[in-house]
C-alpha cells in the first residue's frame, strides 16, 4: 500500500506572535516553526500500517510549504517515512484551504496512493478542513478525528470521539483519514533515523493550486481580557464571589 501523509510546518504553540507588516498573517521573524503536532500522529499511523504489512508499500510525506519546510520533511523521514515531496511556494502560509486541498489532491493522484493520512487540524489556522476537502475532491471516503483505525483488506473501521460518546464508522479504500491525539504514541527520530533521512529522496515540485476562495479582511490580536480581579483569599472570599457572579456577571 502506498500511503500519502500530508503534513505542514506551523508556528510552535508557545511561540509569541505579532501581526506581519503588509500581510494579514503573523510576522514570521523570530518565530519557531515545528511539524504540526497532529501530523505526527498521521506519520506514526502510516509507519505502523506499513510495518503491520511486513514493511510492504511506501510512506510518502507531502507538504505544501516554503523551502524551510524541508526541515520538517526531514523530521518525518527520520521517523521512518520513505520519501518526501515538497510542493514549494514561498507564500504557502497565506494560501486558503481550497487552494491547499487542490494542490494536495493533485499530488495524491499523481502518486497513485490509495490512502491519505493527515492531521485533524493545523494548529496555525485551526481550520480542520483539509482532509474533508481532499476527500471530496478525489471522490473518496473520509473519516475525521480518528482515535482508532483498523484496515483489513480494503475495509476500514475508524472510531472518533463525538459529543457524549464514540462514533464507529465504516468505509473502504481509497480513503482519507484525519488523525486525533490518542491514536498512537509518535516515535522519536533516533540518531540512526536522522542519519538515514539525509540520504532519503526529497523531491521539490510546484503546487497545482485550486482557485482561492477566501478573502482575508483583517488579522488582529485580541484585546487582553480585562480580568485579573482577585476577589480574595480562601473560604472568606466565597460569599463575595457568589455575589459578583449573581449581581455583576449575572451568570447564576
Amino acid at each position, binding site marked *: 500500500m502506498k500511503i500519502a501523509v500530508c503534513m505542514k510546518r506551523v508556528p510552535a504553540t508557545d511561540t509569541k506572535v505579532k501581526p506581519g507588516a503588509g500581510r494579514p498573517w503573523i510576522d514570521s521573524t523570530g518565530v519557531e516553526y515545528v511539524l504540526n503536532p497532529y501530523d505526527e500522529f498521521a506519520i506514526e499511523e502510516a509507519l505502523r500500517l506499513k510495518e503491520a504489512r511486513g514493511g510492504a508499500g511506501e510512506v510518502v510525506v507531502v507538504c505544501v510549504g516554503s523551502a524551510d519546510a524541508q526541515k520538517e520533511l526531514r523530521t518525518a523521514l527520520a521517523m521512518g517515512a520513505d520519501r518526501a515531496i515538497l510542493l514549494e511556494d514561498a507564500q504557502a502560509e497565506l494560501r486558503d484551504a481550497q487552494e491547499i486541498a487542490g494542490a494536495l489532491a493533485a499530488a495524491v493522484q499523481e502518486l497513485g496512493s490509495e490512502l491519505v493520512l493527515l492531521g485533524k487540524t493545523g494548529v496555525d489556522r485551526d481550520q480542520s478542513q483539509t482532509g474533508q476537502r481532499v476527500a471530496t475532491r478525489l471522490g473518496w471516503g473520509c473519516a475525521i478525528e480518528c482515535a482508532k483505525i483498523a484496515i483489513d483488506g480494503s475495509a476500514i473501521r475508524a472510531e472518533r470521539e463525538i459529543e457524549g460518546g464514540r*462514533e464507529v464508522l465504516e468505509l473502504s479504500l481509497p480513503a482519507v483519514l484525519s488523525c486525533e491525539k490518542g491514536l498512537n504514541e509518535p516515535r522519536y527520530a533516533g540518531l540512526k533515523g536522522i542519519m538515514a533521512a539525509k540520504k532519503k529522496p526529497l523531491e521539490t515540485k510546484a503546487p497545482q493550486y485550486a482557485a482561492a476562495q477566501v478573502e482575508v*479582511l483583517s488579522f488582529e490580536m485580541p484585546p487582553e481580557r480585562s480580568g485579573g480581579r482577585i*476577589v480574595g483569599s480562601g473560604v472568606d472570599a466565597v460569599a463575595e464571589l457568589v455575589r459578583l457572579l449573581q449581581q455583576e456577571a449575572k451568570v447564576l
Partner: protein
Amino acid sequence: MSAILVYVETKDDQPKKASLEALGAASRLGGDVVALLYGRHARAAAAKLTGSGAAKALAVEDAQRTHFSPEAVVAALAAAAATLAPRAIFFAATSQGRDLAPRLAEKLGCAQASDCTELRSSGDGKVEARRPVLAGKAYTWIRAKNSTLVATLRPNVFAEAKSGGAPAVESMPAPAADLKSIVKEIVASASGKLDVSEAPVVVSGGRGLKEASNWKVLEDLAAAFGGRAALGASRAVVDAGWRPHAEQVGQTGKTVAPQLYFAVGISGAIQHLAGMRTAKTIVAINKDPEAPIFKVADYGIVGDALEVVPALTAAIKKAIG
C-alpha cells in the same frame, strides 16, 4: 438579500441547542433563514423550530437509512443550496458540523470559515466572519471572494432567537448520493451526561487537585447547577489518567465557550487558555497568586481548592437553590 441556509442537527426529534444558536445568528443578519434537518425524525424536529428564527424548514426524512452518512447530508444540503443560492450556509461547530461543512464547501467551490465567534453583514450583503487562529492568540475576519460563505459557529457564543413564528415545514426527498462513509454505531459514554463542549457551565480541574479521588468536590460543584454543568480537565490530569480525554479542554482537547467556566487548580498554560478563553465569565481558584490563569480570569480566589470549592458549592446551592 438572499437567504441563509442552516443545517440543524437533531438528537432523536429534538433540534440541538448549538444549531438553534446558529439559526439565531442567521436571523440577526437579516433576510430569510431556511433550516435543513435530516433524519428519521426530521419532520418532528422541524415542528419544534417555532421562534427559532427560521422562516422555512426543509425536512429530509429518509426512512430507509438507519445509519448516518455524511455524504447523504452533504448531497441534501447541496441540492437545497442549488435552489436557494444562499449567501451563507451555517453549521454548529460540532463533530458533525466540522465533518460536513468543509465537504459541502469543497463540493460547492466555496470558502469555509471554521469555529466562528462573530458575524456581520457587509454593505453588499456578504456575510463576514471573525474566527480565532493560532489557538486564540489572534483573530481574522474573512469572507468569500465571490460566492457563498460556509461557516461553522462555535457553540455557546451566539444567542438563540427565541421569538417569531413557526417555520413553514416542507418535506424534501433525500437526493441520490454515493455513500462512502457510514456511521455504524454510536457508543454513548457511560455517564450519558452533557458534553463539556455543549454545557453552559464548565467546572474544570487541574493538577492542583492533587489526586483523582478529589474530583468529588468538583462533581459536587457541577451538581449544584442541576444538569447544566459538565466537568472539564487540563491535559496534565488527562495524561496522568485521572480523567478521560473526552473532558480535556485546550488546544489538543475541546474548545469550550460556556457562560461560566471554573478553572480549579489549573495554572493557565497557553494551550489550556486556547480552549476556554472565549468563555463569558471565568472564575479561577488557585493557591498561587502568581498563576497565569488569574490574568484571564474575571474573578479569582487565592486558596486551597479542597477548602474553597466545598464552601463555594454550598454558597451557590443557597443562591440558586
